[in-house]
């Protein structure tokens, strides 16, 4: 068979398109299934073969509402994510500024070293950190989570902001300095507005990472400071498995972040493909 160049191109687009859709559906399916299951009764949720046709019920959501205070956990998630992100930005922006614009011969290796700390399994430091938090009297407090999340996310935040700052010509900052700007004015009037896209991506990523974090929240909180991840976990163990309720509570935990992610897709894609586009 002889294909013209145009046909070849069309075929290629078709194959790539189909593949992309396939992967997207594969990734989306668990979420879809979770959503579906959350509207089933426990019996339907457990049946084999799984049923697609059923009468949706809000029963699970109502039970959850009775049994636990969703908004207590959601509020904890919000507070911890937002404050940890703010704290992270307060540290990461100055760090990235000095690394990007006052580079020394050790800057690159410092960055790599910071990033390499992300490769340690968290469980390896569970005991020391648990003891530190306990001794500080911060078990089951939001403060403990905020500090720990900030420390966990800092390497990636500094790295991201560093790559965005690197794209800004040094000349422009020097021009501001010549124009009489103080360090603070140089940063707030020139540097930050010029990199606001990158900063937004970083903030978003940090929010998502904090929101989804489960390991430390499960280990360091019990009720008072427990975020949504802890709420989800509480439905999975003690009373055996209740698939439908677990799905409903998971849906409630994921919903806010999925909605935010949906509205800021563009930022997010740009933010997550940093480095890859270079």
């Amino acid at each position, binding site marked *: 068979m002889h294909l013209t160049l145009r046909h070849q191109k069309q075929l290629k687009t078709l194959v790539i398109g189909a593949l992309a859709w396939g992967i997207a559906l594969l990734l989306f399916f668990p979420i879809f299934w979770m959503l579906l299951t959350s509207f089933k009764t426990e019996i339907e949720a457990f049946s084999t073969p799984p049923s697609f046709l059923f009468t949706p019920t809000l029963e699970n959501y109502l039970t959850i509402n009775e049994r636990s205070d969703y908004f207590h956990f959601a509020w904890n998630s919000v507070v911890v994510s937002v404050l940890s992100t703010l704290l992270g930005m307060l540290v990461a922006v100055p760090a990235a500024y000095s690394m990007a614009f006052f580079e020394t011969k050790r800057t690159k290796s410092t960055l790599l070293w910071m990033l390499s700390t992300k490769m340690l399994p968290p469980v390896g430091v569970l005991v020391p950190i648990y003891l530190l938090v306990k001794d500080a009297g911060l078990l089951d407090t939001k403060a403990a989570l905020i500090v720990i999340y900030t420390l966990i996310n800092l390497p990636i935040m500094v790295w991201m902001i560093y790559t965005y700052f690197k794209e800004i010509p040094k000349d422009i900052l020097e021009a501001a300095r010549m124009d009489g700007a103080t360090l603070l004015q140089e940063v707030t*009037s020139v540097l930050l507005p010029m990199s606001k896209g990158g900063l937004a991506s970083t903030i978003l990523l940090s929010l998502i990472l904090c929101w989804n974090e489960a390991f430390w929240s499960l280990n360091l909180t019990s009720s008072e400071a427990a975020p949504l991840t802890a709420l989800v976990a509480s439905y999975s163990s003690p009373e055996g498995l209740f698939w439908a309720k677990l799905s409903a509570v998971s849906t409630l935990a994921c919903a806010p972040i999925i909605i935010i992610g949906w509205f800021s897709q563009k930022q997010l894609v740009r933010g997550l493909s940093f480095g890859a586009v270079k």
Partner: protein
Amino acid sequence: MANLKITQLRKAYGDVEILKGIDLDINDHEFVVFVGPSGCGKSTLLRTIAGLEDVNSGHIYLDEHEITELAPAKRDLAMVFQSYALYPHMTVRKNMSFALDLAGVDKHSIDEKVKAAADILELTLLLDRKPKDLSGGQRQRVAIGRSIVRNPKIFLFDEPLSNLDAALRVQMRLELARLHRDLRATMIYVTHDQVEAMTLADKVVVLNQGQIEQVGAPIELYERPKNMFVAGFLGMPRMSFLDAKVKDVHSQSVDIELNNGTSLSLPIATQNLKSQSHVTLGIRPEHINLCEKESGDMQVTFDVAEHLGSDTYCYAKTHSGESLTIRENSETNVSAGESLGVRINTAKCHLFDQQGNAVGYAVDTEQ
């Protein structure tokens, strides 16, 4: 309006010394051009004046006040960068008013100053655009406008025209000259382009490998270069250099013999030359003329001729194989391999000793 004094300025990056003891005086209203080959330290010197680079030792005084350690923001100098360095997120108007906003100048006089600068630079219609919607030449004007509105003590320019195309460069060069005339401001201008240096400067500072080779008015540097570097750097096409040997030294002239056996008597007054010492003869292309074969001061063989319309540059070789460049009028027609005589205007010749320093100047250019 200000004067600047630099003494024994040194700057190194790591172990590499970039500025090796610079001494320089810049007077009020002066247009000073730093010129030199790429990498000689021009930008570094300008940036130390601006305060954007620290110095290792030495002093900088602005109007008798030492500013060596002062932050750039406190020096009251304005800089135009090679890349223009406009603030991309601000409109032209905001770019120009940024410094005044920071200084807390009142809205009304900011508007007036921006408008005045925009008028001078023909930017009035572009005030609400962002830099990305401007052409290279327009961006350049905004960068200049940004410094004008501030009325700084000194304007600093770092190769401001090198990103423009040739025609625009000539136009902007004229505008800069006009601007300097109208503002009567002190300006320091860095370039590697000797034409910009010659045309714009009141005072040219020739830099080479972190040192000042010579300072002076353009014409002075052209006619009385202190050494072979300055002589060779200024002038298009370059001065030709021929090896020679001193035959005789008189009170008002020097007799030399070139490698090809030609003898010349140069009207140069000097005491420091000994008979038989090796020297270099420097001749600018416009001080050599073609003449009939077997006549003139020596015979040369032609290699290439470049016809520029107004002039013809002839590149030739002497019989001892040294290169010689001759500038002739446009009617000149020579072909490769042709042999002709040349006549040398000995009153305009330069003579350099073995260290490359000028041994004296032709008598008629002596003041």
